[in-house]
């Protein structure tokens, strides 16, 4: 177990700043414009919204919306149009684990090269670099616990630069990407039909 030091924090902080700088450059190039904010929000709520409805909601022409979408896809602001599936309600076996990964940075690359070595594995669903007592939070999905454990032991923990891992298996999923996946009375709308 590695002890969290101020120095480590600074190294990571530096890395994060680099991300911000890249983002600033993107904004300067005009990739993200204000009108896109609403477009992105509407898509985030419903990726299947029709172009004609998007155009009406944004007071734009269809062509303009298509043009913006293409641009945002090209610039990877829009990274996909995925469906949030609650696999728990299907008869598909799926095991999710959150893995804390400790790693040592490399000269010139920081944590990026180690990260790329990890996130390219098909088993890795989501990955973050964090501040705090470990470096990466890696969310791994597999069919069984054995499969996930095997992946961690034989692949993830062996990546050069990785100095330790802790694996936590998910028991229940409550909320994912802003969507509550368990039965919940919240948001159940019992407004009267007509009110002043």
């Amino acid at each position, binding site marked *: 177990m590695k002890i969290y030091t101020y120095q480590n924090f600074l190294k990571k902080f530096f890395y994060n700043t680099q991300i911000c700088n890249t983002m600033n450059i993107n904004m300067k190039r005009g990739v993200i414009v204000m009108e896109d*904010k*609403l477009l992105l*929000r*509407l898509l985030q*709520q*419903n990726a299947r*919204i029709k172009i004609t*409805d998007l155009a*009406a*909601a*944004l*007071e734009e022409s269809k062509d303009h919306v298509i043009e913006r979408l293409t641009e945002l896809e090209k610039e990877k602001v829009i990274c996909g149009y995925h469906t949030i599936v609650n696999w728990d309600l299907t008869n598909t076996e799926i095991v999710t684990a959150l893995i804390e990964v400790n790693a040592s940075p490399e000269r010139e690359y920081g944590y990026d090269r180690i990260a790329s070595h990890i996130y390219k594995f098909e088993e890795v669903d989501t990955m973050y670099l964090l501040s705090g007592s470990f470096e990466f939070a890696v969310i791994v999905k597999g069919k069984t616990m054995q499969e996930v454990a095997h992946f961690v032991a034989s692949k993830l923990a062996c990546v050069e630069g990785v100095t330790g891992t802790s694996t936590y298996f998910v028991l229940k999923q409550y909320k994912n990407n802003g969507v509550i996946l368990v039965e919940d009375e*919240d*948001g159940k*709308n019992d*407004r*009267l*039909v*007509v*009110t*002043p």
Partner: protein
Amino acid sequence: MNYEEMLSDRAKIIKPSGIRKFFDLASQMEGVISLGVGEPDFTTPWTIREAAIYSIEKGKTFYTANRGLLELRQEICQYYKRRFGVSYDPEKECIVTVGGSEGIDIAIRALINPGDEMIVLDPGYVAYTPGVELSGGIPVPITLRHEDEFKLTPDLLKAAITSKTKAILLNYPCNPTGGFMTKEDYEKIVPILKEAGIIVISDEIYAELSYEEEFCSIASFEEIKDQCVIINGFSKAFAMTGWRLGYILCHPILSKAMLKIHQYIIMSAPSPAQYGAIEGLKHCQDEVEKMRDSYKARRNFLVKTFNDMGLATFKPQGAFYVFPCIKSTGLTSDEFCEQLLNDQKVACVPGTAFGPAGEGFIRVSYAYSLEELKVATEKIKLFIEKLKTK
């Protein structure tokens, strides 16, 4: 005993709300798609609910100060300063009320003598005229015009002011029209209000739901600030309708008189709601903005959809209603809404529920998701097409 005879004249004089009749019709029917509600579809942000629950757990269940919790009043005054640039003293110029509704009631009661005239805008919110009548006042309606986008114009205002005029009740952004007064619009009427020396009660409950220009509070005009009584609350911006929490900001002498009425009839607004509201003012501006963005997208969608259908609909700059003109169908507002309900099970509110000037219009709320609006407007379109072939 003849119970009708037992009733007070004032109880008899006020008319039942036009909304009520429609509510009864719509609630008897199964599977109604409603575009008829005047409250947000969003649930109160969890952080507000959580703060109120915590206050109950901590046993903060007693009466608060009559004016409301000082911390809440301080937050309200800071909020008005920060958002709309108008300063009030939380100790002497702010009262926390049971919804904006109580605010309207006690403001009118504190100001109107029997026989005093009070100008109300037509179409306007359902509670204003009865509020004046309950005080023995005489409501003097100004008929607003579609071509002005239901703004109050100097000529209309001048024509309505008499020697008996005590006050005027404004409500922008407006329920039911979505009408909006910009700073420039107000600049034209402020000198008239100043010269007339009448009180301006400004119901600013939809202030946060302004989509084009920044909301302008009439009290931001320093020359008439002391004449203004601001009514606002948490229902619309913070999606807190059921909590019943509002507030009044006004000159200390007026405020003191309203407080007197408030302390006898209400004592103090519910304490859990007040704790929730403090959290809302401190931490929910982002949520308010997200909701505003959603409303704006829905408004754009509706305005285009209704105009495409051939129902002339101006683009409202605030609140969450569009006010399509249905005169081209040859039906009255009542007929249109009733037939639409029977034919397609879609509930809208006839414009006449908000005053005679609402004839020829319907109020369509967009406190619904885009998906719901789409389904409902497709049904309205079918209805219109059927009407044309008749």
